[in-house]
């Protein structure tokens, strides 16, 4: 009897995967709800295998109506053949995403059969210090955008002694924390979400390895409220992990004690900034803190705290399982290992591409992405989220590494790539970037809080054709103040999309427009 795989990922569900799964069940078929393979233009992509771990063949863009008519066959125009041989997937190098789309995300046996816990077992066999050394050797850098070396951050936390919560009189127990930043607010990014929905045990395993490495006893995942499916899946995984002693007082019989809780965000983009996230976790307004002190020394409630992005932590189990040297052999310069790129916006083949650092933006957009969904020429690509620069089509040959992108005036950010076709108006996009900063600024520092408001006003004057030259000079000056004077990346990087739009697409700022963005 065949087994059918129908993704439970939110993106697949947003295209009707639940109805497809129900229709298969109604026909008496066995259905496994897997994660998504990340070929999102094919969703719902359903797969069939003869045994649980057998070769899987697939059908793309299925609907319940298709299933009600007949079980799909190899003659169907939706048939895509053996799924793992599809070029898009076969050309990737999946480390973080090795199980996503393959396993049932909430089946712990499936997790073990596909290499789960191998990294944690290797970690528990050596000292915490040795684990920090392994992470340092791997060259792993923070995937949240800043690219800070994870090993150095972990070393700092490991060297601190645990502290009780500052100002807390009731509970004087000393703690260290592992805080995972899952406040993935950048438009064009969804890799954290898909990992948490598609392989939540991987995140928990990575957090546990980090806890062993630095001597932390508590873990928190700050997860945005816009991701209800990820919240539910991760919570279910935490419950299962506790039952299995993958979390708790005596993890895998090792005497390591560590537990994880989810904290749900409340709709604030700036809380993705690490110190604002700490404020929010402490129950306050998400206002950015000045650094120093570094969170690694005085973080959550004044305790030493590791703050890493979901993808950083999810890289850890595979590094421990497959070896730091193998990982560090991938990539180039000081951008080692793999990055999970996310192809989004106006793109024919959007989704997840995990590959070694160093691939060009053009290879991602053209070869993997297949150009625009509309079929019109690519005009602009925004790399690295709402605070990243817009690049024109002729600048896409840049290598996707921290170093090469910085040299080209861009940034890798969280790996999001948003494609726009020729219908985009870049003055609208520049205005949106400033307006987004108005909306989401925490208000602590003046360049960001007031600069963004003045930026919108000045852009409106430029768009209306009022003294374009003078106002553009003023806007550049304002952007300089925001870049130099803001406390965090919100105000400091908002000038990236604004100035790149003006510099790369000046023609859009010459003719007055009426519509507002």
């Amino acid at each position, binding site marked *: 009897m065949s087994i059918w795989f129908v993704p439970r990922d*939110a*993106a697949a*569900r*947003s*295209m009707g995967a639940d109805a497809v799964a129900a229709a298969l069940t109604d026909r008496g078929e066995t259905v496994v709800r897997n994660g998504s393979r990340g070929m*999102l*233009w094919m*969703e719902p992509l359903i797969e069939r295998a003869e045994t649980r771990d057998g070769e899987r063949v697939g059908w793309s863009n299925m609907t319940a109506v298709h299933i009600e008519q007949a079980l799909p066959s190899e003659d169907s125009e939706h048939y895509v053949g053996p799924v793992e041989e599809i070029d898009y997937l076969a050309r990737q190098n999946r480390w973080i995403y090795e199980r996503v789309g393959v396993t049932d995300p909430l089946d712990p046996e499936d997790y073990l059969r596909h290499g789960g816990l191998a990294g944690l077992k290797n970690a528990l066999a050596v000292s915490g210090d040795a684990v920090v050394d392994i992470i340092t050797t791997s060259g792993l850098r923070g995937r949240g955008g800043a690219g800070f070396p994870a090993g150095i951050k972990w070393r700092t936390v490991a060297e601190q002694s645990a502290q009780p*919560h500052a100002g*807390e009189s009731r*509970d004087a127990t000393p703690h260290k924390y592992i805080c995972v930043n899952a406040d*993935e*607010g*950048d*438009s*064009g*990014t*969804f890799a954290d*979400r898909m990992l948490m929905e598609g392989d939540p045990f991987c995140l928990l395993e990575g957090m546990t390895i980090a806890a062993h490495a630095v001597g932390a006893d508590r873990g928190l995942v700050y997860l945005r*409220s*816009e*991701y209800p*499916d*990820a919240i539910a899946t991760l919570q279910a995984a935490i419950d299962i992990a506790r039952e299995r002693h993958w979390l708790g007082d005596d993890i895998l019989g090792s005497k390591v004690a560590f537990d994880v809780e989810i*904290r*749900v*965000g*409340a*709709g*604030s*983009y700036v809380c993705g900034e690490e110190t604002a996230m700490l404020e*929010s*976790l*402490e*129950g*306050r*307004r*998400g206002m950015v803190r000045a650094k120093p002190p570094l969170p690694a020394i005085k973080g959550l*409630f004044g305790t030493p705290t590791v703050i890493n992005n979901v993808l950083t932590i999810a890289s850890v189990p595979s590094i421990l399982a497959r070896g730091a040297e193998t990982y560090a052999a991938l990539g180039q310069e000081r951008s080692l290992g793999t990055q999970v790129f*996310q192809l*989004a*916006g*106006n793109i024919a083949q*959007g989704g997840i591409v995990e590959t070694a650092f160093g691939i060009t933006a053009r290879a991602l957009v053209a070869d993997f992405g297949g150009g625009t*969904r*509309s079929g019109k020429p690519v005009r602009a690509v*925004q790399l690295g989220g*709402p605070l990243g620069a817009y690049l024109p089509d002729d600048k896409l040959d840049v290598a996707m590494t921290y170093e090469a992108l910085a040299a080209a005036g861009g940034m890798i950010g969280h790996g*999001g790539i*948003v*494609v*726009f076709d020729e219908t*985009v108006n870049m003055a609208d*996009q520049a205005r*949106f970037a400033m307006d*987004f900063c108005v*909306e*989401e600024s*925490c208000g602590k520092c003046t360049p960001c809080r007031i600069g963004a408001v003045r930026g919108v006003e000045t852009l409106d004057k430029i768009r209306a054709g009022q003294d374009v030259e003078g106002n553009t000079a003023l806007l550049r000056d304002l952007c300089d103040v925001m870049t130099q004077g803001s406390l965090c990346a919100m105000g400091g990087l908002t000038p990236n999309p604004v100035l790149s739009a003006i510099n790369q697409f000046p023609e859009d700022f010459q003719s007055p427009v009426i519509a507002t*963005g």
Partner: protein
Amino acid sequence: MTITRQPEWNAEEAAALIAPIVAAESGPVLLCLQAVQAHYGHVYSDAIALIADACNVSRADVHGVFTFYADLRETPPPAVPVRLCAAEACQAVGARTLKAEWSAACEASPELATLTGVDEPIFCLGNCALGPAAMVNGELIGRADVARLCQAIDAAQAQERPL
């Protein structure tokens, strides 16, 4: 048409709701506000003083947290909330047009407008390869258009049961 009813404010019940949070957490204010909203659908103004007393902070502190976060509501939510993504990846595939079309549909039908509420833009639902993205009553919609939104609203209403 079924309208989701929100529970009436009950100070004793609310106090019992937040007491375990205050007892267990070092920084409980935001968690208390979220718990009140999860139960009552919005944050009744009486909740501010209640939380301030329970957490031993000023009402201004609680009010400050309440007003900072976009998710926390002063008024009951609409029966079937519709949120359209307004961020860049969805802009690239017609989010601005969808917003205009949706606004027109709501203007043409006051009943629809009441049912779904004023569209409060949301910045990114994590469905950036299948935009424009929308969320209808908590359900994510990919490649949204007015017809798909209306379909999802009908499905949400069919599921709703009066309390």
